[in-house]
Structures are given as C-alpha cells and as structure tokens.
C-alpha cells in the first residue's frame, strides 16, 4: 500500500489530459454484530471511467443515491477506493498514503453544497480563507495571509474590507463565494464542485455559475461540476456524465446530450426537467418514469435501469450493457445502442 506508483497513462504521456479514471469502484461494507462481520456492501460507485482535459469541465448529473457525490469524494481521495485507477497529472493517486494526500490537496480542491455548515462559525473570514496554508505548512506571516485573503475575496466578488467579519454576517450566496475563495487560496488546478448552487436562490445561482465560469477562464482551472439539475450542470460543462445507481450510463458533450440523448434514463431526465417557456411546454412530450431508484445494496441484475425502463427486454435483465462509444466520443451503456460501434471497455 505504501509504495508510490508513477504510471504513465501510455508510452507518450498525454499532457492535455489532467485526470483519467478507469473502472473506479467504491463499495462500502455493511457490517453486523459485535465482530463487524461483513454481510454485504453498498455499491455506491460501481465502475466509472472517464477522462478530463485540462481547462475543461465535466458535469456529473444524477439523482440522490446515484453515487455522484461519492465519486467526487473518491477523486479527492477522501475514501480509500475499492478498485480502479485515478490518474491525476500522470500519476496514479489510488494508493497514495495520508502524507501524500496533503500534497495532493494543494492541486485538487473541493467546494460543497451547504454554505452554512462548511464555514466554521467561530473563525474570521480571512482565517477561513487561508487556513489551508497552515495545514499545508506553507507558513506565511499574519500580514501576508491577510493580504492573500483580501486578494482572494476580491477575486470572488466579496468586499475585501469584510475580511475580519464572521460567517454569520454573510448571506448564502456570499458564503458560497467565501468557500470558493478558500479553495482558490491553495492555487489548485482542479476543483470539484459538489452541488454548489443547489441551496441557493435562482438569482444567486446565476451569479455563482457565472463567477465559476469566469474563474475557470482566468485561472485555467479544470472543474468537475456535480449536480442534480441537468440544465445548470449542462450550462457550465463541456461534457456531461449521467449517473444512475453507481454507474455512468451516458457521457457526451453538453450540446449532444440535449440534442441526441441515447440512454432511456437520460431521455427521461431531460423530459422531466421543465423548460421555463409556457408555449414550448405545451407541446413537449413527457416521459414519466414509474417507481423509485432501487437500493444500491441489491441493484437489479443486468442493466441497473431495467426496472424502470420502457424498453426493457430479457437481455436487459440478464446481461449488463457495456459502456461503448457510438461515435464522436458519445459513450452510452445500453443494449439498444449495441452493435453501433466497438466496445471500449467491458
């Protein structure tokens, strides 16, 4: 476990690709009794593969329990992953020890959903923004830290004069900006945004999304943008991965996803998201899925979506569909699409 692996992704390292994930699995054991005897596992992420180019944004969309946040946490290495590879900057980070993680977190930062619980109520804003420097042992004088905090705050649109205030003096949108400033203080190259606008009001959501887009351009950041609102995720992302019950079922460019969704789940998700245009809505056809998402402890055999899919046949219930490229980097895991291209994996 302790050995450091430096595995190039191929003979000639692809410098454009900042992260590559291969067949990532995260199973949480369910234990029983005093001896913590394992009796099963929650397959939160059950085989995810994708790669992200530098400066691009990958959106991950899915319902609660689809494993999208677990996936984000795995990429931060907040969990010890069950299997698979995470290659970040040409280096496999799946096994790096605790000490190496600190180093990793200079480059990968995460912003979370709830701007109320993610900021320590007893710390002043400039302490919150620069706390990472102390943890990373990048010691600086108090004055230097204060100056850095002011710079970061003005970058995210908070008056730097407020640096000595406490979190409760700020609204939800402002707190989310402070969370972003804290992440940026580490000068990361890669940011995981986990449902960062879900708790905010509509007019504030647009502000934060626009801010994230601006920062991406200015600082050449790469994002993973996790969310449940397809229209928001699609707006900020270059590519979107749709997750269902621990698996990525479709992955393609944001434009293609709306124009040519191939997986029945993606189609249902798009049709379930109403568009704010009454005239358009009159003519839109709605696919209403029946039932609920099955438990990730006992996912259905075969295709995980087979219990709710209108096209299900015998093969779907027996055999797991491979994740294939049907052309132009449009990946989908569905038997209906099979035979259109070569399988890449599985």
């Amino acid at each position, binding site marked *: 476990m302790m050995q450091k692996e430096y595995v190039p992704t191929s003979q000639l390292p692809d410098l454009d690709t900042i992260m590559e994930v291969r067949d990532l699995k995260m199973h949480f054991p369910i234990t029983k009794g005093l001896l913590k005897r394992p009796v099963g596992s929650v397959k939160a992420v059950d085989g995810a593969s994708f790669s992200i180019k530098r400066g691009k944004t990958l959106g991950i969309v899915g*319902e609660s329990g689809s494993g999208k946040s677990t996936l984000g946490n795995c990429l931060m290495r907040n969990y010890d992953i069950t299997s698979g590879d995470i290659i970040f900057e040409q280096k496999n980070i799946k096994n790096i020890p605790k000490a190496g993680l600190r180093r990793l977190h200079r480059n990968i930062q995460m912003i979370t959903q709830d701007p109320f619980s993610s900021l320590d109520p007893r710390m002043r804003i400039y302490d919150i923004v620069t706390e990472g420097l102390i943890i990373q042992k990048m010691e600086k004088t108090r004055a230097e830290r204060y100056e850095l905090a002011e710079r970061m705050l003005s970058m995210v649109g908070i008056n730097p004069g407020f640096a000595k205030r406490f979190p409760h003096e700020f609204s939800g949108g402002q707190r989310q900006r402070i969370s972003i400033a804290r992440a940026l203080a580490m000068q990361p190259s890669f940011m995981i945004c986990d449902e960062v606008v879900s708790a905010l009001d509509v007019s*504030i959501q*647009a502000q934060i999304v626009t801010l994230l887009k601006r920062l991406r351009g200015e600082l050449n950041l790469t994002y993973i943008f996790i969310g449940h609102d397809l229209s928001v995720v699609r707006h900020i992302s270059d590519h979107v991965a749709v997750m269902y019950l621990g698996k990525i079922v479709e992955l393609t460019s944001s434009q293609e996803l709306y124009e040519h969704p191939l997986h029945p789940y993606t189609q249902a998700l798009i049709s379930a998201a109403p568009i704010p245009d009454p005239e358009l809505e009159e003519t839109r056809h709605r696919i209403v899925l029946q039932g609920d998402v099955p438990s990730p402890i006992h996912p259905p055999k075969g295709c995980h979506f087979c219990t709710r899919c209108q096209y299900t046949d015998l093969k779907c219930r027996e055999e797991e569909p491979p994740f294939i490229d049907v052309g132009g980097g449009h990946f989908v895991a569905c038997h209906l699409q099979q035979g259109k291209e070569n399988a890449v994996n599985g």
Partner: protein
Amino acid sequence: MTNNVLEVRDLKVHFLQEEGPPVRAVDGMSYSVKRGECTAIIGESGSGKTVSALSILRLIPFPPGLIAGGEILFDGKDILKASDEEIRKIRGARISMIFQEPSAALNPVMTVGKQLEEAILLHTDQTRQQAHEHAIELLKMVDIPNAEERINQYPFQFSGGMQQRVMIAMAMCCEPEVLIADEPTTALDVTVQAQVLEQLNHLRKQTGVALIIITHNLGVVAHYAESVKIMYGGKIVEQGSTKDVFKNPHHPYTAGLIKAVPRLDRPISEELYTIEGEPPDMRFVPENSCAFAPRCQYATEQCRTMRPVSQQVGAEHFVSCFPRDQVAQGGEFQ
C-alpha cells in the same frame, strides 16, 4: 356567486421584533384564485410566499406573527374574521396544504393508515371502518401500489416520493376546494418530481380543486400553472396568465429571473443574465420605495422614494413598477 374561490385583498402580515419596527413580511398583497385553476406563486427565500400561504390557513403564530390588515375571502366570507371553531372546519377540509418536506410532516411512530384515518375522522362523521376503507381508496387514488398492505406501514418504509403522495392523499381526504402546495417537490429528485406534479395536476382535473403551487422553479410554473404571481420583498410585483408574464414581462425582476435560468433547449454558449446583488433583508426595506430598486438597472429617483402601485398592462396582467414600459420594450430582455 363569483368565479373566484379565493380572494386576497391587501393582505399584510407583520412579525414583531423585540426592538425596532415590525418586519413587514407580507406587505400588501392582492390576488384571486379561480375555481379549479392552477396558479403559481414564485419568489425567492424571504419574499413572503410561504407566510402569505400560511395566513390563508390562519397558521401564523401570534406573537410574533400578526396579520396586520387585509381580507381573505373564501366563498365570500372573510377567513381572517372567522372564529377558531369555524376556521378548524375549513382548515384541512375545504382548504388544505402540503409542505416541502414530507418526512417531517408525517408522524414517524404512527402508521400511514392511522394518520389518514385521523384526518378523515376529524372532518367527517364516518365510522372507523369506513374511514379505513376511505384511506385505502385515497392511497389508490394517488397510485400507491398494494394500498391494502401499505396502509399498515410506517412513513420510513415509504420513499420520499411516496411520502409526498401520502401527504397529497391526506390533503385530498375531504375533497377540498383549494389545495396549497408549498414547494411540494423541492426535496424530491427530478424524475420523482415529475411523478408528483403529474399526480397533482391529474387530481386537479379530476376533482376540480384549485391548486396554488408555491415554488421557485420557473420550469414547473411554465408547465403546470395557468396563472402566476411573482413575489419580491413581500409584495406581488407582477401577476397575470403564465403565457403573458413569461412572454412579455413588465417587471425588471421577472424579466431578469427568466433570463437567469439556464435552459436545456438553448445552446450552452449563451451567457446567463445575472441580477446583481442579494434579495433584500426585510427588516430594512424602506416603506416608501420599490423593494427591488437597489438591484434594478432601471431604477430612478421615483422608485427610491415612492411605492409603485399595481397597474394593468394587459388582460389580467398587472405589474407594480414605474419604468414598466421601458422594461417591456428593453431590447436586451427580448
């Protein structure tokens, strides 16, 4: 007999503070709801949308809450003047409400059936046996499979979407004339949200109940609501038929909100419009001004010193804004 089942006239709800003047959470709100229609109230947190709905059911606790003025006419009678006895006969029976978080609204230590029966027994003179059968019927009505077995289960054995269906069943138990749904799907997943909304809309068509949906999701409004009221700072700033308001917004807040939502059918290269600033802190909104003025690009001296009154700009389309004509013509909003 008018066509309106509910009429709210100049409703004012204040919250008293220990120090300083009361917070005017709802500050002069007038609207009407037609029989069997689906209307939506849109607003951000703190805009007073939930408070205004709770006052229809007289559920504002006093103190600190205080209904400071106005009338709420239900079936021609003023709810605000009704006695406690009278309001209990209306609340839950003729006007009912469902809330955002179904898991918090259901009692975790009582079976779903018992909770439904309790509501039925309270409002009708059915026997226990009849109430039990009625409860099963209600669960079937909201498409809960195996209703006969499910009725003896506890709320934790239901998923979020199913719990919300139970809430709907409970709200529908006495065939109400008005059903208020306060963010009924905010806590639910997108696909489950569609199920619940379709269910509500289906029930409305079946029973003729008037539906008031309180939400911040413009898409939901566009799909389900026939008319819409946009709230900002405790007031309705714009109201009208959904088509008119979405197509031809006259208030800068409405216009900005519609452009601030990313749309699935638009190319992603399109920039989002952002309304600068934050929603107002209701403690500090001056009485004689437009609450939106600090965030408004059209604001003039008049907006900061006078309160705009509701003006008609189209058939059933009303707006409270001084520079409304400018907004409606404003090229950048089209």
